């Protein structure tokens, strides 16, 4: 009754060739990328790299060709993104648009919106950020207070979004906001906002690592034209929930510290201790099983099923794994973590360690995910 099956998806005939192609591309493009840079995982941002990925046809892979896509399967896309993550490629610039903003526009957007934005996203030229969280609305997304008041020809937006990753380097935001009064989930909508619009202020929020990924984005009477409403007014909640299924299901939910595991294996070298052997073996077992689970979810998406529950399970397990890698690594090699260390390993350890707490917060906290799973088990 509560059996969650995770069937192996069918093998893609083109998979092996595609994987070779991606590996060759990454070997060339990332030849000089250091372990400490790779440890940034999908926080690594490089607009030029994203354009090259777009030129290779690896953004918007599964979208129709008439929107600049490449009509490849979700499983082929999976191959590309897992190879990018495993290599520690700097994918942040195009990541959000490829993963969720583009699919959202394809699903709910107008024909004009699709034609305007999807080809630019697929070329790796147009970057998006997510406008969900607010200062007083984190896990409780329905408490969002940012308001879009209908005016002649569009909306006037006022409010503040917070934790906007790479908002300072994105061209557009998909804004979740309130367009009318209503009980919690009612009266919310999604707007496609040009971040160059007058009245928008983007301020950095510096992380404990010293890095600038987060921003606070404030809107003061910002005009958004009516044709930038995504989907239907008042349907924001349902739309954003479908967006979250994309956000939670991918391999980035268990591969964030894989570059550190790779650096660890490099560091233990050819004469490893029995302790390292067991600990690395155990992590590798987790890695392969998570990959099997995640790959299965990708297969369900490709088969047009709704794996929201399975995705929550995989993300919950994946975050535990990603967070465990630095904790295991630090006991196997005597090296004090430091961002500025000369040792690439010590620096990669520092980067992963300082990023780790976010893994069970971003994209749905551990508590929210476990609530979703509990509901799936019939407990709520």
């Amino acid at each position, binding site marked *: 009754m509560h059996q969650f099956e995770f069937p192996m998806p069918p093998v893609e005939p083109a998979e092996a060739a595609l994987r070779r192609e991606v590996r060759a591309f990454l070997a060339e493009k990332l030849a000089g990328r250091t372990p400490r840079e790779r440890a940034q995982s999908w926080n690594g941002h490089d607009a030029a790299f994203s354009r090259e990925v777009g030129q290779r046809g690896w953004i918007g892979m599964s979208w129709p060709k008439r929107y600049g896509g490449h009509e490849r399967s979700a499983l082929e896309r999976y191959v590309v993104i897992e190879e990018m993550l495993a290599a520690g490629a700097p994918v942040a610039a195009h990541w959000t648009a490829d993963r969720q903003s583009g699919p959202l526009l394809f699903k709910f957007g107008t024909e004009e919106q699709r034609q305007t934005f999807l080809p630019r996203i697929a070329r790796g030229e147009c970057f998006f950020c997510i406008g969900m969280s607010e200062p007083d609305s984190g896990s409780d997304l329905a408490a969002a207070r940012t308001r879009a008041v209908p005016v002649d020809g569009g909306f006037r937006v006022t409010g503040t979004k917070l934790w906007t990753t790479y908002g300072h380097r994105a061209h557009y935001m998909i804004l979740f906001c309130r367009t009318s009064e209503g009980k919690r989930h009612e009266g919310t909508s999604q707007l496609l906002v040009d971040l160059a619009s007058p009245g928008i202020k983007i301020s950095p929020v510096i992380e404990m690592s010293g890095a600038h990924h987060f921003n606070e984005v404030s809107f003061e009477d910002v005009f958004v034209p009516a044709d930038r409403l995504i989907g239907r007014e008042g349907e924001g909640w349902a739309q954003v929930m479908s967006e979250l299924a994309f956000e939670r299901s991918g391999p980035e939910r268990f591969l964030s510290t894989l570059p550190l595991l790779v650096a660890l294996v490099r560091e233990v070298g050819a004469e490893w201790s029995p302790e390292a*052997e067991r600990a690395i073996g155990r992590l590798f077992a987790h890695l392969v099983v*998570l990959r099997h689970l995640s790959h299965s979810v990708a297969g369900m998406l490709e088969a047009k099923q709704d794996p929201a529950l399975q995705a929550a399970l*995989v993300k919950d397990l994946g975050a535990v794994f990603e967070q465990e890698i630095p904790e295991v690594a630090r006991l196997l090699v005597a090296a004090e973590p430091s961002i500025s260390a000369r040792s690439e390993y010590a620096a990669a350890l520092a980067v992963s360690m300082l990023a780790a707490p976010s893994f069970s917060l971003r994209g749905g906290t551990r508590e929210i995910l476990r609530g979703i799973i509990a509901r799936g088990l019939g407990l709520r």
Partner: protein
Amino acid sequence: MSEREILLGTAERIFAGIATSERLAEAERGIWHAEGWRVIEEAGLPLALVPEEQGGFGFSPVNALAVLRVAGAFALPFPLAETMIANRLLALAGLPLPDGILSIGTSSGRDALSIARNGGGWRVSGRLVRVPWGRSAGNVVTVAGDAILCSPVTASGVSEGVSLAGEPRDDVVVEGWLPADRVADAPVQGGAVRLAGAAVRTIAIAGAVQRMLELTIAYAGDRVQFGRTIGKFQAIQHYLASFAGQAAAATAAADLAAAALAGNLPALPIAIAKTRAGEAAGAAAALAHQIHGAIGLTYEHMLQHLSRRVWSWRDEFGSEAEWAALIGRQVCSAGADGLWPLAVGA
């Protein structure tokens, strides 16, 4: 209905009748239920993993192995997994399949099985340790060096022991002469019996973990404290969500193990599967007992038949520590640049 549904339906129907709590308790007291085994044999399950050409039914091995997940879920007190894989290993090696109950055994160290040509056959000598249902098996399948062999079990060679769950785990002395049709080249190198044993224990763990999850969800929806069912408390809900994650991981591990067993027993995926399922078993049993409270500790309760089994199964045919070491050696030998390709290929 698909082949898988038919097999699973048959297994569930049969096991529900022969794995009742009374029967589990009797089995633990050493009572052998010949009638139960007869029903299993009549359904053809011991031959479910044997290719059609060698007297099997031509089921897909992965479907046949799903039966063992059901067996795990029922804590089936019969050596079905052992007989199924013993028959499969013999069939793959081209050896005749003896009738009746079979088991599998491993030996090591000073007591490692030795084998030498003798006349038209072979002389074998050694001691197999903790053979499941050794006392009930007519024959035991084991490996010695690169050979696989099928030796009769004699009552005088059996020293009885039990697992944490009270399942028979007997030492069996193998001493004597075997005719030529009892020995062949092992179908795979590197301990086919231990690999196959680890794979079936992984599959059984997945079934038992899933059943413990179902029992625990049902209990949480039933048990009232502080005026509401305990499943309404967020702490319990989060325990159960975490439990479901472990069940999912065990299920995925069982899929890996089944694919490996259906193929030529590659060591890496089996090591991965046993390592992950063993860890899931410990976490799941702890959560199941925590949520059940004291009632789960009582002998009458089904939970403890399952928890004691997963605690013993995770250590049989290699614990997480042993298999993780094998994985770690392969990963460290592959090196930093080989790690990811190894993961994709596993």
